[in-house]
């Protein structure tokens, strides 16, 4: 009886031992599968996030390109209207004034003065029309257009522009040159409107692997906090346009120290950045 009891006890102990070992093994294998599942799911999540980011960047870039195309088309339309309508009408006015032969010396002097003013207006409108038209800019090239524009501004006496070209100028491509010119126009506009500067230095550096455009004024400068929504969006627009052509636009300014805009471009890098931002861009 006692032997039977001991035997039964041993059997029970063996059964419990097997049960505990098997259960422990199962309870250790289950978390392994859970772990594998989580690692695989995490990898898929990472791929999903990357794809979403790529799609968002592609969308932003397309949006930016479309905005710029619309802007250029609008400017071209305005340029044509100015050239075809307004300058024609003013030329007619000038001719009519030239045909007036009556009146005393004083009246004739006033008529001549009016003719000169109309002639000046016609010239200014022609320059304006050309600067807005991308066909004209593309035809002349970036350097020539820049020289014409700086000459016109210097003649107006609004500000002194000093243009310096280092190295041998070479074509950068129509789209790039157009964007660079638009950046120059934006900087010039800001300088004339806000800075109160007397000088604007433009430096073009052409080298084998790099092109550098530097625009520096001696105005009152600004800090990031002072930038309001409108002028702030103009600065961001510059950075976005530069990024679209694979360039980096860096804007440095502080109160009392003027403003310096540097646009750097590797002319042989064809890739347009999908997220619209160059990796080194401030934004």
């Amino acid at each position: 009886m006692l032997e039977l009891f001991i035997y039964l006890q041993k059997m029970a102990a063996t059964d419990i031992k097997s049960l505990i070992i098997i259960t422990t093994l199962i309870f250790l294998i289950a978390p392994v599968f859970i772990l594998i599942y989580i690692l695989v799911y995490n990898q898929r999540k990472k791929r999903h996030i990357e794809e979403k980011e790529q799609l968002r960047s592609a969308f932003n870039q397309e949006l930016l390109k479309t905005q710029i195309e619309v802007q250029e088309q609008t400017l071209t339309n305005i340029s044509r209207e100015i050239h075809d309508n307004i300058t024609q009408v003013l030329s007619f006015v000038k001719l009519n004034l030239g045909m007036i032969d009556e009146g005393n010396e004083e009246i004739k002097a006033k008529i001549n003065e009016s003719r000169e003013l109309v002639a000046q207006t016609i010239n200014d409108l022609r320059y304006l029309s050309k600067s807005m038209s991308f066909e004209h800019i593309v035809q002349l090239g970036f350097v020539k257009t820049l020289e014409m524009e700086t000459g016109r501004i210097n003649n107006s006496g609004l500000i002194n522009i000093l243009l310096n070209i280092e190295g041998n100028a070479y074509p950068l491509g129509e789209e790039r040159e157009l964007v660079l010119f638009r950046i120059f126009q934006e900087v010039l506009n800001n300088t004339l409107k806000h800075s109160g500067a007397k000088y604007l230095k433009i430096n073009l550096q052409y080298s084998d692997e790099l092109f550098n455009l530097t625009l520096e004024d001696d105005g009152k400068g600004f800090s990031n906090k002072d930038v309001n929504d409108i002028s702030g969006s103009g600065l961001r627009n510059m950075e976005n346009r530069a990024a679209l052509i694979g360039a980096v636009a860096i804007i440095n300014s502080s109160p009392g120290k003027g403003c310096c805009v540097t646009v750097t471009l590797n002319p042989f890098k064809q890739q347009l950045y999908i997220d619209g931002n160059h990796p080194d861009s401030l934004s």
Partner: protein
Amino acid sequence: MIKTYLENKIPENSNAWVFNILLLFQMGFYNLMFEHLFTKYINSKPLIISGLAVFSIVYVYELFFHNPDKIFDYNSITDTVLSVILVLYSLYYYYLLIKDERYVLLQYSADFWWVTGTLFFYFGSIACTLFYEVLKSEPVSSKIYISYISNLLIVILYSCWSYSFICKKWLPQTSKA
């Protein structure tokens, strides 16, 4: 705590009261840790308080109404309940982790490896604590395999925790670099 029944002592001289008190500190520590982990994703207070409430009720019941020798009997049911609660907390943490939109590099995530160690240890030890009452009455020589299981689980637990602490210390330095 698995080794309490390896001692095989008579109740009055048993050291089970140490492990019974240790259970309270264990529950407090793990609740603090999981509360810190869950807070990143949800308001964790209701969940933690519920877990504490269940643990407390089972602990008091077993200590005063179930154990014939009160504190000198090990609260094995409470230990099992603690294991189940911690396993559920761990699984819930994994669920919150994969549900979250942010991507986390799991290979270097200190939180992830801490929870993994905890899950392996408590999931693996459930079988042992569940059969505590039966194993208590067996001779020590016949249940030496329990100490092997216990050692294996401890190695897994502390390996994961050590790696977790390395990740915790390592990551801020690499991000500064």
